């Protein structure tokens, strides 16, 4: 019965979907608000694509896209979801913002969204549950079976610093500049079941591991693992969870297109074998990306070279360009490349906003104005 629960559903190759966790702000001082229930209720009354769900605290919502094959339709759907969410929020005098962290909220003010699962998380993890008011993007990539999912997971682990550096948008936490480009992942690391998938190669070995963990009473379902990259058997996908939510949906779509092209390169060409050494350097590389973003240095476990994350991304963008072309994502990745070359990042944008205005309230306000776009112009 357990095994049935974890049967890996087959997905058609390289389909993708995006989940975004978003911040709900008030329009007075742009601190986090507590209106998730009202907001979700109102959005459900409007016609919109995708799905909108509650998250761990009342200051967050999560939006999900449907399944896409190319960047064009993904960005289109994300824009329509954004407009629906932004208009509903404006209707309630709320603001919605991207970004991996709220710049100045205090975690102790947060309230858990009242569902059984979230109450349970509060029960188990205590204050960590409220500190989990951080905002990430998850990208799902469809794979044909569990073995392929594990292969993709092990190889993509090599590129996790890319994802972190490209999406980093949480320089501020609790009213302070953290000096990190992405401070959000430090919060994730506090959870005991965070980290990486075990180094197993076949889905049957993975099931053995999972059933053991279940037998120990440590986990009940895959949801209890807070891994950076997680196979998602019921969707037939590999889910990459290290992204900070970018400041715009356009950036979110471009990041998904990058993962999609990378996955196609990995699964079609099988360029590298899975390697335990990737996991030996994993946490060091991850830290470099969080702390320094594009300027961080990573250790390539395969060549044992040190390279800057920026150079490594630019190399990879060139390598996967034919796959991007095949998938119709050339323009999106060219834009991404231009941003990497000039070292434009969301974290940089947020720090610049703070430098020019001198107030984190203004940073949060500008963050929401950037994300909501035209929804605020209507009146």
């Amino acid at each position, binding site marked *: 019965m357990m095994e049935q629960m974890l049967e890996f559903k087959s997905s058609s190759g390289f389909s993708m979907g995006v989940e975004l966790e978003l911040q709900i702000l*008030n*329009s*007075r*001082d742009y601190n986090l*608000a*507590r*209106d998730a*229930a*009202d907001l979700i*209720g*109102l959005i459900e*009354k409007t016609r919109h694509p995708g799905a909108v769900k509650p998250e761990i605290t009342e200051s967050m919502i999560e939006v999900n896209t449907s399944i896409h094959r190319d960047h064009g339709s993904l960005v289109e759907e994300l824009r329509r979801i954004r407009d629906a969410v932004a208009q*509903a929020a*404006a*209707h*309630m*005098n709320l603001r919605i913002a991207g970004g991996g962290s709220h710049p100045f909220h205090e975690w102790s*003010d947060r*309230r858990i969204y009242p569902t059984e699962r979230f109450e349970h998380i509060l029960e188990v993890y205590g204050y960590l549950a409220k500190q989990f008011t951080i905002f990430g993007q998850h990208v799902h990539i469809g794979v044909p079976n569990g073995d392929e999912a594990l292969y993709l997971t092990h190889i993509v682990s090599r590129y996790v610093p890319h994802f972190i550096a490209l999406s980093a948008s949480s320089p501020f936490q609790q009213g302070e500049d953290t000096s990190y480009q992405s401070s959000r992942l430090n919060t994730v690391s506090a959870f005991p079941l965070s980290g990486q998938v075990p180094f197993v190669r076949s889905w049957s070995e993975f099931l053995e591991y999972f059933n053991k963990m279940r037998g120990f009473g440590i986990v009940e379902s895959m949801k209890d693992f807070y891994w950076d990259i997680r196979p998602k058997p019921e969707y037939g996908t590999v889910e990459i969870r290290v992204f900070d939510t970018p400041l715009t949906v356009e950036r979110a779509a471009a990041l998904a297109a990058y993962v999609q092209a990378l996955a196609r390169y990995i699964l079609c060409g099988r360029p590298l074998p899975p390697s335990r050494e990737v996991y030996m350097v994993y946490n060091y590389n991850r830290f470099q990306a969080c702390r320094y973003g594009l300027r961080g240095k990573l250790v390539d476990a395969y060549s044992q070279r040190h390279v800057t994350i920026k150079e490594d991304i630019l190399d990879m963008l060139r390598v996967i360009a034919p796959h991007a072309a095949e998938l119709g994502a050339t323009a999106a990745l060219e834009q991404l490349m231009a941003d990497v070359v000039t070292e434009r990042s969301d974290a940089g944008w947020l720090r610049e906003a703070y430098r020019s*205005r*001198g*107030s984190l*309230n*203004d940073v949060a*306000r500008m963050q929401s104005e950037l994300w909501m776009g035209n929804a605020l112009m*209507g*009146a």
Partner: protein
Amino acid sequence: MSALSYLPSFPLPAHPVLLFGLLLLAGFAGGEITHRMLKLPRITGYVLTGLLLGVSGLGLIDHELAREAQVFVDIAMGLILFELGRRLDFKWLRRDRWFAATAAAESTLSFACVYLALVYLDIQPLYAAVAAAIGIATSPAVVMLVAQELRAEGQVTERALNLVAINSVVAFVVGTMLLSWIHLEYRAGWVTVLSHPVYLLAGSLLLGYLASWSAILLGRWLGKREELHLVMLLGLIVLAIGCANVLKLSVLLALLAFGVMAKNMDHNHDLMQVDTGKIGQLFFVVLFVVTGATLRTNELMTGGAIAAVYILARFVGKSVAVLSLVHLSGIRPGSGGLLAIALMPMSGAAIVMVHNATGLYPEFGARLAAIVLSAVLILELIGPIAVQFALRKAGEAAQERG
């Protein structure tokens, strides 16, 4: 000069600072006792303390002392109205037109219901109209302070505060226009009839405009330093209160206008959001103690029936408007009823309006007081409890510490 002339003379003279300290401590003690023993809002405790010490109780705070304390009451009202004004967001009303419609209907219906009920009870139309105008307003002080005490936030809280801001303005404008009618009734000259309301409205708005414009310019010059903005805003608030008093303008309208314009004219976001609550708390306690002290329980005997009708008609007016329109704004089912309950408290400004009327035409004031003040007495005690109930029930209160 006698050898002991440096000693104070007995009985000790009334001194404003001594008075302030005594009122503050007495109210504070009453609030804590009420809160801890009866689990009621502290505000109810402040009012009860005032009732106990005031003209209806031990008589320690008489009219003389209450007038001495008026300066603190004015500062408290000014701080509250400024904060309330900053919550009123015109852009929101334009985006959510059903909410704007709710606000308009809520003010109109509560006036209409009270007016018709009073006329039905054979009260002369002029008195009925002035009493109904007073009934439009929900107490900004009670709603603001209960929301602050509970650290409440959410759609019911935000919408209640916006509705309070709007109905306070409407009540004031309607009340001021009725002033012409009162002047007319008492055969004042045409110049007075026409110019007095205009002076009050235009003068108070202009004062608010100048204050908000100064605040924005000073805010821009100061830069984003919260502690500096706090002192600057407190200074301007107190100055505006003083000006309104000296110029015989309305503290209520001027300070509300100051807050509204500071929010809605600040296109560059130069003004910071500051927390005047902690400093204000000192004055808020005194505000409610003094309000309680001026309430008269003996009027409850004579005016009890009218008060009951008045309160009921007002509640019906507000509820019908809110319940029939607010769900069109898309908030959770059930929120409408709670919102209507949160609008129950009557404004302490009613007392001020009655006093002002008394100052102009004592006979008019006395008859108006008989209609309105019993309702104020009842709602001063029940109002905070109603707001607390509504915000808690809506799930918008923060978890309480201890």
